[in-house]
């Protein structure tokens, strides 16, 4: 029996040790409480934020992309919905998603392929997508599922926990190849796009967006078309599975962009080119609206939407085709290719001559068929020359000698300072991406262009000015620049900003108009413009454009042009080689006296270029005729005119007197009415 007793000697040691243990416990307890205080009280804000960041995921709500429509509301680019079969590519659960092994995925595909058509290309695309989009948890194996396929899958779904049917928004271009350079296309956002989005601070707005406009209107109006991404605040588990919706801010759909383009006119124009290469820009001179913008050959933008296949890309890039034989379907010739303007430059040279008082309208020169300058003979277009030629005749018959002399008298500085007001050598600043400047040669330009060559090469030689006079030599302009210059002339020197976007319409039908914008009034006396316009009007009646406009029920003004190819390249001219043939130009406007912009009467100015088309009169002018026929008369090639009402008005050569609408700069007292030149003059 143990009884109460004083602790023995060992217990004497025990109690102090026990006290030390108690102190140790208290110290340990205080350490724990201090740590908890630090975590829960002192640093509470930090951990609270960390916990919220953990559980709340912001899921972007992708806005609907705006449509692109033509001026009559015809849809050129729209959204379509595509049902795709997607396979989960990561292992669910866990915090860092791990990629599933390829064998496992191939197994799933093998099982799926038993009842849904999956070919080799689908498999390749799947694995490629998976490799390129490691951040995504699933990848599409098959797109464009039919209703029947979806039904078949739903029946088998219980076997596939890792497969889902998803709806993806894709883009479709109902007109396919038509106007593809103009409308452009969207493509998957690549690394470069992501970087530039980051740079302009738009990355957040594209968090859930897969596509971005790459060309044409799709690229130009990307911001408006895309809209503003919304956001769902979702509570998620550690494995990333959504639990509930905490908040929602809706996306703002993209705006629809309505173009000034008339897709039917575009159709007529592209058809008129046939198999030929070239470009055409048709505008309304009174407000700068672009009515049609053609670059042929074209391509199908639908090919790009979900990543172009390597075969199609190789075909469009013409891999393996010799450079000289390439058709370059992806090149937008209307904006990006600059060609020597040839004789279409002459009306503007004439205006320069009048303005600088180097020529009077009626002043005649004698054309012996050539022009000597600096020991070099510049040949006229007509053997033996045109004889006595005044300015009117020089335009109607397109006399070269007249312009050799004029260029020599004006000299390069006057030409290079006069021409920019028409937009030559400057970007038109049209609302489309990727425009070239072209070349308006000047002394400064040559110095810069040949900066790396010797000083001899940088110097401007007076002889070089001579060919500038007939639109050859160094100068080169894009079709849109030529159309702009002609529209400016047609609009009595009022140069309007060219644009394809007419208005933007948001999802609530609020309309934002893009109003016409006057770029500048040309610094040329109105009577000079009038004189040149009258001569151009007679080009289609008595001059180089007569045959193309035979039987027209309206009066068009125009100028043919032929741009030499071989002389520029310095190669040997070989008539049998189609690619060595001259480029064919035609610039025109109709009717010759434009109706008031507020009336519904149509007006059009255009520039047509046919690559290697030969004479402008033979190749480009008939295309212009078809386009103008359609625009003024709604008449298509090989079809009777639909609207003859206006025709009688403009039939008469002197339209100014017959037209009801008030005319700007209408001038009576026609200056020296020269004798018409009935024969079809060569250029």
């Amino acid at each position, binding site marked *: 029996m143990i009884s109460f007793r004083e602790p*023995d000697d060992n217990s004497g040691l*025990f109690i102090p040790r026990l006290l030390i243990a*108690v102190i140790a*416990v208290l110290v340990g307890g205080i350490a724990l409480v201090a740590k908890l205080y630090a975590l*829960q*009280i002192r640093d*509470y804000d930090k*951990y609270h934020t960390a916990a919220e960041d*953990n559980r709340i995921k912001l899921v972007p709500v992708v806005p609907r992309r705006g449509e692109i429509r033509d001026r009559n509301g015809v849809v050129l680019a729209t959204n379509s919905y595509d049902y795709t079969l997607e396979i989960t590519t990561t292992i669910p659960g866990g915090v*860092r998603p791990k990629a599933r092994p390829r064998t496992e995925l191939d197994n799933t595909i093998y099982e799926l392929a038993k009842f849904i058509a999956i070919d080799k290309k689908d498999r390749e695309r799947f694995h490629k997508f998976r490799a390129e989009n490691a951040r995504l948890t699933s990848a599409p194996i098959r797109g464009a599922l039919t209703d029947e396929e979806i039904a078949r899958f739903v029946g088998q779904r219980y076997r596939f926990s890792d497969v889902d049917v998803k709806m993806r928004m894709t883009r479709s271009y109902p007109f396919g190849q038509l106007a593809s350079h103009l409308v452009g296309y969207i493509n998957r956002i690549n690394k470069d796009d992501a970087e530039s989005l980051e740079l302009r601070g738009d990355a957040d707005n594209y968090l859930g967006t897969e596509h971005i406009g790459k060309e044409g209107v799709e690229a130009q109006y990307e911001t408006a078309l895309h809209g503003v991404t919304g956001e769902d605040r979702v509570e998620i588990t550690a494995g990333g599975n959504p639990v509930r919706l905490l908040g929602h801010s809706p996306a703002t759909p993209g705006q629809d962009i309505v173009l000034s383009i008339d897709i039917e006119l575009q159709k007529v124009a592209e058809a008129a080119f046939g198999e030929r290469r070239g470009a055409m820009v048709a505008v309304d001179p009174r407000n700068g609206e672009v009515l049609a913008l053609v670059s042929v050959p074209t391509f199908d933008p639908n090919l790009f939407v979900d990543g172009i296949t390597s075969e199609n890309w190789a075909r469009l890039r013409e891999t393996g085709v010799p450079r000289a034989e390439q058709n370059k379907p992806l090149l937008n010739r209307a904006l990006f290719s600059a060609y020597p303007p040839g004789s279409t430059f002459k009306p503007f040279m004439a205006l320069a001559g009048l303005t600088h008082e180097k020529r009077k309208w009626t002043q005649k020169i004698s054309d012996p068929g050539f022009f000597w300058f600096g020991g070099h003979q510049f040949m006229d277009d007509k053997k033996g020359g045109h004889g006595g030629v005044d300015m009117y005749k020089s335009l109607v018959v397109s006399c070269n000698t007249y312009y050799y002399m004029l260029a020599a008298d004006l000299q390069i500085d006057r030409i290079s300072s006069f021409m920019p007001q028409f937009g030559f050598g400057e970007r038109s600043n049209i609302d489309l991406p990727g425009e070239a400047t072209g070349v308006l040669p000047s002394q400064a330009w040559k110095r810069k262009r040949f900066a790396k060559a010797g000083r001899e090469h940088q110097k401007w030689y007076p002889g070089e000015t001579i060919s500038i006079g007939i639109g050859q030599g160094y100068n080169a302009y894009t079709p849109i620049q030529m159309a702009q210059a002609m529209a400016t002339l047609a609009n009595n020197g009022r140069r309007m900003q060219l644009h394809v976007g007419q208005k933007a319409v948001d999802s609530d039908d609020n309309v934002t108009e893009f109003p016409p914008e006057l770029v500048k009034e040309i610094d040329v006396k109105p009577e000079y413009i009038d004189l040149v316009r009258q001569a151009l009007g007679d080009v289609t009646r008595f001059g180089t454009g007569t045959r193309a406009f035979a039987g027209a029920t309206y009066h068009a003004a125009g100028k043919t042009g032929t741009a030499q190819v071989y002389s520029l390249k310095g190669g040997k001219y070989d008539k049998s080689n189609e690619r060595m043939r001259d480029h064919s130009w035609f610039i025109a406007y109709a009717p010759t006296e434009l109706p008031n912009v507020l009336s519904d009467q149509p007006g059009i100015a255009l520039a047509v270029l046919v690559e290697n088309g030969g004479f402008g009169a033979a190749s480009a002018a008939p295309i212009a005729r078809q386009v103008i026929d359609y625009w003024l008369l709604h008449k298509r090639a090989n079809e009777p005119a639909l609207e003859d009402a206006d025709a009688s008005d403009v039939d008469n050569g002197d339209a100014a007197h017959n037209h009801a609408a008030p005319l700007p700069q209408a001038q009576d007292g026609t200056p020296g009415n020269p004798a018409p030149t009935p024969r079809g003059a060569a250029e």
Partner: protein
Amino acid sequence: MSAARQRFASLSDFLLRPLDPTLALILCCLLAYTFVVMASASVGRLESLLLHIMLAMVLIWIVASIPPQRLLSFAPALYILGVVLLVGVDLFGETSKGAKRWLNLGFGRFQPSELMKIAMPMTLAWFFQKREGSTGWQDFLIAIIVLALPVFLIVKQPDLGTAVLVSAAGVFVLFFAGLPWKVIGAVLVTGLLAIFIFVQNSADWCKPEVQWPGMKQYQKERVCTMHSPKKDLRGKGFHINQSTIAIGSGGFSGKGWREGTQTHLSFLPERHTDFIFAVIAEEFGFMGALVLLGLYLALLIRGFIIAATAPSLGTKLLAGAVTMIFFTYVFVNIGMVSGLLPVVGVPLPFVSYGGTALVTLCLGIGILMSIRHSWQDH
């Protein structure tokens, strides 16, 4: 008094007599708290938790009913059995999660190292009682060897958490038995020096290609993670990082019962076992954690009182060591979950879900009650 009432009174006396009311009350509070927390952390386990609690009560009652001297006399046999089983584990043990800890007995799996947590302090207490009055340095040397043998076998499994607890249990007995301060000082200095050297060199030693002799890769990583948990938030540091977020985001008063986002959205690992303290701290906040710590403090104080008033050296040593084992459990677990200590698999006593650990802890409570009961009686 009717016969029935008398019979009832004697029955309740029979049932309640071995129990220490104070300890029983504290334990009931702890278990009630556990029940509430588990109802949030893991509803599906409530039924088996109730079963565990009932079995625990029976176990405590049985142990509490046995006189402490008899318990101590079992100790050497228990120790030898434990060592034999540990060798058996080394030879025939089942491997799970890279560690060989389990012995299949045919009817169920058994973890012999768990047995050692109680057998060790009992054996050493029995030993020092035997040598009472004539303890010399040879006795401490023998005791250290007795301690080192099973600890070595457990480290080899490897099971760092249990090794820490078993050696702690032994060291506490040695300490209470009067281990000379010179030795304690030498061990402490060596330990601190080792930690200092490690911290100085951790950058080099924690490189992935470096192998630590005698340790598995995951053990090395745990130690390294504790030293710099922020380095790899998605990998090794994930558990600690998420549990500190859970604790910190609980704030002063917590997010509310079943409202813990870290807990319920699966960010918290092992939420019903080793990391359950984080659930408490997240849902009931600093206040909830203090309540729990208060309950543990009451338990420890009661243990110390029992030790101080125990009737013999053996029972004193045993009661003191068992109390300190409880403290070690609490300190290591909360220290680990809050990022104060490296991750070692030590449960939170009476709160973490798990049968084996509960058996050990109830043996400890039973022993304390038995010691208390033995001197009250007489």
